[in-house]
């Protein structure tokens, strides 16, 4: 039975994680050190790079939280091997990402290098930004962030504690009761999560270009970061496919095999991301009003257009055909390659989304990379640490390895 074997066979995976953690921490420390040197020489560029890194890793944490909420709501069998990874990622919203947000808050109030709307003289000369002042002001920004972090963290910890109780319950009937109870909380959580996620994306992403707005923005971001979180979790599980814990899961035979569902979900999210991204472009293109088109004008000139060509190819066409093929969903290694393509293009996509907010021509600074690696290293170090605190797959879960018939 799954419940008895997991505790025994986790050792190899745990050893692998233990070996990986110092590497992540080292990279993180190195990245942050380089970034800190940039803070001394070119604080503006360093803070902008830092905001981009924060946006990516916060988005990934929120993608993890979204998936954790979804999986606890629908209690799908396909997510059982991944759910601890999502919970561990979601748990980083607080304290890690909340602490990581402080430099941005400092910049909003003091140095003003990230957000245009924090410049008093710019706003004074601009009636549109004055009209947006009730939302785009420093105090509201800070209070908003406080609320987002508090509520996101509340749900992240609630799910974590709830599933911990279930792991420790021992009694299958009690475990089932706890699982159903959590399903109710999580369903409510999805609604609150999406509302606040939308507002958070307005604050942290859209308001970088304060004249521009798009109702699709948060949808594009949640589709993208959900895909990102799933790709990360699958990357981990598929990389560990030959270790005793995950081997029977990844190679689970039959029509209802896990990797079929995983591949289909990757496919769906890639297509959904493409659908909403194209919708935004199509509506902008039809309307042809400067307040909307400026977003694409910036991203389609000055060298940014080359990235604009790469993204549809690797964020839509390649994954579309890759994950459409039944063979991909049958051969774990091939699935892993698809997942790695998506992980790579996600970074490029966020770079293309955020960096042109400050730069009219294609450019990347050392501090962009340093902040990304720095924050990412710490993120991975802590996420893997959270993962080690618990059994790696749900205990008391008879559905984990049940056969198709």
């Amino acid at each position, binding site marked *: 039975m799954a419940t008895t074997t997991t505790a025994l066979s986790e050792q190899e995976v745990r050893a692998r994680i233990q070996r990986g953690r110092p590497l992540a921490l080292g990279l993180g420390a190195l990245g942050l050190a380089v970034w800190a040197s940039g803070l001394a020489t070119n604080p503006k560029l360093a803070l902008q790079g830092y905001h981009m890194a924060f946006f990516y890793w916060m988005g990934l944490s929120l993608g993890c939280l979204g998936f954790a909420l979804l999986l606890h709501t629908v209690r799908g069998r396909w997510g059982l091997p991944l759910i601890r990874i999502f919970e561990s990622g979601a748990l980083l919203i607080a304290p890690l990402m909340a602490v990581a947000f402080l430099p941005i808050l400092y910049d909003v109030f003091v140095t003003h290098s990230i957000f245009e709307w924090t410049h008093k003289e710019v706003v004074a000369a601009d009636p549109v930004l004055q009209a947006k002042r009730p939302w785009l002001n420093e105090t509201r920004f800070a209070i908003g962030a406080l609320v987002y972090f508090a509520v996101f963290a509340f749900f992240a910890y609630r799910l974590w504690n709830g599933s911990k109780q279930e792991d420790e319950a021992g009694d299958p009937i009690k475990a089932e009761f706890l699982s159903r109870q959590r399903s109710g909380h999580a369903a409510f959580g999805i609604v609150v999560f999406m509302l606040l996620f939308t507002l958070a994306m307005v604050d942290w992403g859209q308001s970088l270009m304060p004249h521009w707005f798009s109702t699709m923005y948060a949808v594009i971001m949640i589709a993208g970061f959900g895909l990102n979180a799933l790709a990360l979790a699958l990357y981990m599980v598929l990389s560990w496919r030959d270790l005793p814990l995950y081997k029977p899961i990844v190679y689970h035979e*039959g029509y209802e095999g896990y990797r079929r569902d995983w591949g289909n979900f990757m496919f769906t999210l890639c297509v959904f991301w493409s659908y909403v991204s*194209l919708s935004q*472009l*199509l509506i902008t*293109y*039809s309307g*042809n009003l400067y307040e909307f088109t400026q977003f694409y004008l910036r991203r389609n000139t000055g060298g940014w257009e080359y990235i604009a060509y790469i993204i549809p190819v690797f964020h839509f066409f390649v994954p579309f055909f890759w994950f*459409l093929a039944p063979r991909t969903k049958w051969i774990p290694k091939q699935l892993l390659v698809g997942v790695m393509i998506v992980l790579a293009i996600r970074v490029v996509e966020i770079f293309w989304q955020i960096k042109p907010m400050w730069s009219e021509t294609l450019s990347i600074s050392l501090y962009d990379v340093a902040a990304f690696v720095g924050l990412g290293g710490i993120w991975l170090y802590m996420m893997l640490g959270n993962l080690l605190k618990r059994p790696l797959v749900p205990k008391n879960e008879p559905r984990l390895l049940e056969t*198709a018939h």
Partner: protein
Amino acid sequence: MAHGTTEPKLYGLMAEFETPDQLLEAARRTRDAGYKKFDCYTPFPIHGLTAAMGVKEAKVPWTVFTMGLLGAIGAFSLQVWTSMVDYPLNVAGRDLLSWPYFIPITFEGMVLAAAFGAFFGTHIYNRMLTYYHPVFNVPQFARASTDRFFVCIESKDPKFNRDEAYRFLQSLNPISISEVPE
């Protein structure tokens, strides 16, 4: 038979089984014995049967894929042709090749063509709209839609020999073996 003097042509030999597992085993052994033209009849889909029968990759998915691709290319080309060659129209100064506008139609064209591929592909490959099939000449076959499982080796098979096929089917321990008249 209307003409009692002539013996009807033999369509094949059919063996009857009681459980899906027996059928799976029978299908596997029939395939291993080298028979190509044989078919299995079951009341419900049996997991792993196509693999046991040695059926190669299904054709319908590829048909749907090809049709979808052709539909997308066709719909896109149609729009390019109408708006750039046949009747160029300046819409608010936009490019004649305003490809974002073409995407919804391209998508719909793909869905339509792929759906046709699925519908007609299923019909053609499954030889649907067959009004007469010899297997129904065997009275036991009525239970193929309720609780019995059948393997029928057809006489079209190059390896088919009535006595050999009979002995082979017997070795599978079926409940019954019937001759299927054409």
